[in-house]
């Protein structure tokens, strides 16, 4: 099961969806095609904003760190933070604020404790993997965490994990990735609500 299909399963038909850190709008575009959602992207990079506009996906230029609360009271059903939480200055604040803008939130977290990361670190090098593709000097990631760390933060913030999937390197669930996620899942995918 690829990541996008997974996210699609959690997004209801006609949902009003905000994708925080939407990049070039690919995910919103496919959700729009498959689920007829009402999409809104949030992106800071103007080149990516142009890509969204070229796909006819509405896009809002904003810095997620500073602007999540700007989207309060606008009736979003789902907020998506796909592989962008580790780029935020205050991931904890973002997580607790995000449920004030949408009923549910989908978060994906690249797992820094995946065996490939551990192996590369044991060789004395910063990990470069499919889910963490940039070398250390060119990455936007400033707050990397592990699956265990993330789930502990959710408990601390009183957030309820409604659904979770642990994906291996091929973006699909495997026996090992579901059995020993903190070692074998390269990406954790969560559907979160408040308690």
């Amino acid at each position, binding site marked *: 099961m690829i990541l996008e299909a997974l996210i699609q399963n959690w997004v209801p038909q006609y949902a*009003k969806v905000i994708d925080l850190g939407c990049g070039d709008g690919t995910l919103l575009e496919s959700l729009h095609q498959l689920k007829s959602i*009402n999409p*809104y992207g949030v992106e800071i990079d*103007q*080149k990516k*904003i*142009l*890509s*969204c*506009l*070229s*796909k*006819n996906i*509405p*896009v*809002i*230029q*904003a810095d997620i760190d500073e602007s999540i609360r*700007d*989207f309060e*009271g*606008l*009736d979003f059903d789902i907020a998506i933070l796909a592989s962008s939480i580790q780029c935020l200055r205050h991931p904890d604040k973002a997580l607790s604020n995000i449920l004030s803008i949408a009923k549910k939130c989908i978060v994906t977290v690249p797992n820094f404790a995946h065996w490939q990361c551990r192996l590369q670190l044991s060789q004395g090098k910063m990990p470069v993997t499919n889910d963490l593709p940039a070398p250390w000097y060119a990455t936007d990631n400033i707050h990397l965490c592990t699956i265990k760390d993330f789930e502990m933060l959710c408990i601390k913030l009183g957030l309820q994990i409604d659904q979770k999937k642990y994906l291996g390197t091929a973006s699909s669930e495997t026996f090992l990735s579901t059995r020993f996620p903190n070692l074998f899942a390269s990406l954790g995918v969560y559907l979160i609500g408040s308690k």
Partner: protein
Amino acid sequence: MQTSNKLYKFKEELPLTSGQTLDGFELMVECYGNLNQEKNNAILLNHAFSGSHHAAGEHNGTLGWWDDFVGPNKILDTNKFFIVSANNIGSCFGSSGPISLDKNGKRYNADFPEISVKDWVQAQKLLADKLKIQTWKLVVGGSLGGMQSLQWAIDFPDMVEKVAIIAAAATVDSQNIALNEVEREVIRKDSYFYNGNYYEHGKVPTKGLKAARMLGHITYLSAQNMEQRFGRKLQDQQTKLDDTINFEVENYLQYQGGKFADVFDANSYILLTKVMDGFDPSAEYDNNLVKTFKNISAEMLIISFASDWMFPPARGKEMLKAAIKANKKCSFVEFEGAYGHDSFLYAEDNYPDTISTFLEGKL
């Protein structure tokens, strides 16, 4: 590109939001490009407060105010699109306004009826009918022209496919009104104003109009832009416009104000600032912007400039939030803008590409 204008005469009455009626009116219009057979490539371009129908190309030696954006292979490509640009009623560049003659051949002067942005849209709708245009691919404008574009999307949802609202807001704020009132007062206090009937006295209140424009001009720039451009540089002795001038910025404002006062009409200035102050599309919808936007079916693009202190990005976001709350397709893009409020006039950064990508749906 050489352009020419055309005067469209309307014999029908135009009922105004003020309750008064214009007994026939005229619009001075420039069009660029060709309307295709399907009549689905038309774009409406709305000018700002003191702008005119002359948006592109060269006419009598002057380039249009958005020439960087409008022309063959430009952002609004005249090889593909038919672009309509009309001087608004109440202005002084050929459309009906205070300097026009009424039915009895008497100049309106200060008695020209009170006008609203909504009236402009109604007048442009009649122009669209005359041009056999049923839908606009895009309605676009900056500043007061952006507000007019928004009013179009609200009043004629079936006619507007896309709307780009640039350097604008859903209303002007108290400070804007205050500055406009100072500008009006300066004009009224010119001894040649004669309650607006100056032409009957063979005079023109140029000094008041010039001073008003100088104040207005400051609000169109940004503090940073002025600092970079002029700083505290002293004006060169040989080129200073009068002896009281010390700094370059003074000379600049004197020159710009003077140039403006030579071509603009004082009654129009007062009338058009009133149009701006009165702009409030939500007034018809219980002062609720979300409710106001419910009718819109156009895809919306809102562009703000960080250096614009007349309509800063927060005012753009106010429209954005109302649009999202109303479940409308709406994008918001912000640029630094090197020229303050006037940044909408200049093709810089990704600003032009943002408009063309929004319009054409491709990079």
